[in-house]
């Protein structure tokens, strides 16, 4: 029998992910062999499922288990807080690299302890609406880079001009919209666990002196929880969309946090996670700050 070789058609997009994966594996192997780091935190295929999960690699032989594809949705930056005193390398999407920059700005981790494998020209994550609005597609901080750096024109071409439909509504309509969203919330706190900003050892939802928000799943308390969480996001959220992807009820969790990002940029010309030396928005002030919304 004649063997017929069928050439598989590979989508250019897929190829991009594969190339990034190859480069990540190569760098990780090198770092582990040279003993520069003790661990590499990255994305890998799960043991029992085909889903992408975070994996922690300390043996150079296992470096080929690292992957990067369109389902690598979680933010790995949060794991850095578990390895504060160890030398670790981390695979960072551009949004993760911004998260790392924010951690550095907040003095939570030491720059010399981490090696960042930054992904340049991030092709985006499946089903993540935040990627459509993302205009930072190159790693902000990195020791090693993989992928091809995207130019500004390329990034702009990828941006979808999406008008915020909530902004156009009247206050009553907006209230109704969010009531409908938060009604479905079961307070599983998946959004909190997925979020890199939410690293508090004791969350405001758990304390009872004072009891900021009731434990029960009532709309009034659900709404309050989401407002309070969004207030903690102010000037720290990098709009990565992890909260929205983690939500099992498909609630528009990101809307409030994204609004805070936009407002911070409009009113204070501030963007979180751009510079690892910047002060966070609310831990700084300017004498000539705006007083929009104040009484006369």
């Amino acid at each position, binding site marked *: 029998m004649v063997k017929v070789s069928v050439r598989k058609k590979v989508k250019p997009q897929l190829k991009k992910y594969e190339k990034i994966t190859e480069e990540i594996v190569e760098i990780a192997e090198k770092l582990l062999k040279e003993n520069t780091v003790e661990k590499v935190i990255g994305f890998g295929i799960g043991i029992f499922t085909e889903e992408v999960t975070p994996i922690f690699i300390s043996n150079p032989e296992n470096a080929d288990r690292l992957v990067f594809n369109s389902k690598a949705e979680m933010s790995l930056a949060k794991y850095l807080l578990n390895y504060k005193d160890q030398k670790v390398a981390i695979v960072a999407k551009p949004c993760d690299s911004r998260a790392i920059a924010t951690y550095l700005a907040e003095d939570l981790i030491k720059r010399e302890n981490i090696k960042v494998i930054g992904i340049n020209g991030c092709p985006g994550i499946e089903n993540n609406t935040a990627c459509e609005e993302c205009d930072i597609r190159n790693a902000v901080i990195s020791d090693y880079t993989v992928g091809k750096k995207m130019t500004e024109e390329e990034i702009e071409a990828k941006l979808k001009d999406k008008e915020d439909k909530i902004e156009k509504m009247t206050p*009553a*309509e*907006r209230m109704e919209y969010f009531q409908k969203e938060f009604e479905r919330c079961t307070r599983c706190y998946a959004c909190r666990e997925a979020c890199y900003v939410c690293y508090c050892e004791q969350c405001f939802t758990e304390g009872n002196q*004072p009891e900021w928000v009731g434990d029960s799943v009532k709309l009034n308390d659900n709404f309050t929880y989401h407002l309070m969480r969004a*207030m903690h996001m*102010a000037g720290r959220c990098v709009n990565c969309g992890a909260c929205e992807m983690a939500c099992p009820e498909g609630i528009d969790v990101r809307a409030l946090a994204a*609004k805070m990002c936009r407002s911070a940029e409009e009113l204070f010309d501030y963007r979180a996670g751009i510079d690892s030396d910047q002060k966070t928005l*609310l831990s700084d002030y*300017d004498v000539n700050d705006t007083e929009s919304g104040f009484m006369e």
Partner: protein
Amino acid sequence: MNENNEFEPKIAAFLCTWCSYAAADLAGSSRIQYPPNIRVVRVPCTGRMDPFLIIKAFNMGADGILVSGCHPGDCHFLDGNLYARRRFVMLNEMMQYAGVEAERMNFTWCSASEGKRFAGVVEDAVENVKKVGPWQGFDGQGFSQEEGETTVEKV
């Protein structure tokens, strides 16, 4: 509701002890009349104001809030009110985006000598909140009014 069946709002007023609280005191001792709709919470500085306090006030049924601190540059702790200012601006943005009317959120500055101005501020705040009516809560269910709290009963 008052005796004419008009809406009388309950406003949580967070006053800085070094200025606005003293201004309220001055207004009182100068016998300046202002609406009795505010419930004063005395804070050591507006910089101490956690935005959660304001969200919590709405959660518990306040129709509106009033925050008053020292004028920028006059803070007893030098820059507490400047930190607070950013926080309030961001909070205000978020609350309006979530559908809470702008009229319910009142922020202002008031020094200890401005008793008259303080009375004016309270009048403005009450007028603002009256414009948008009773607060129905984040769930839109409204709050059951406690006896004697907002109802002025006819004797």
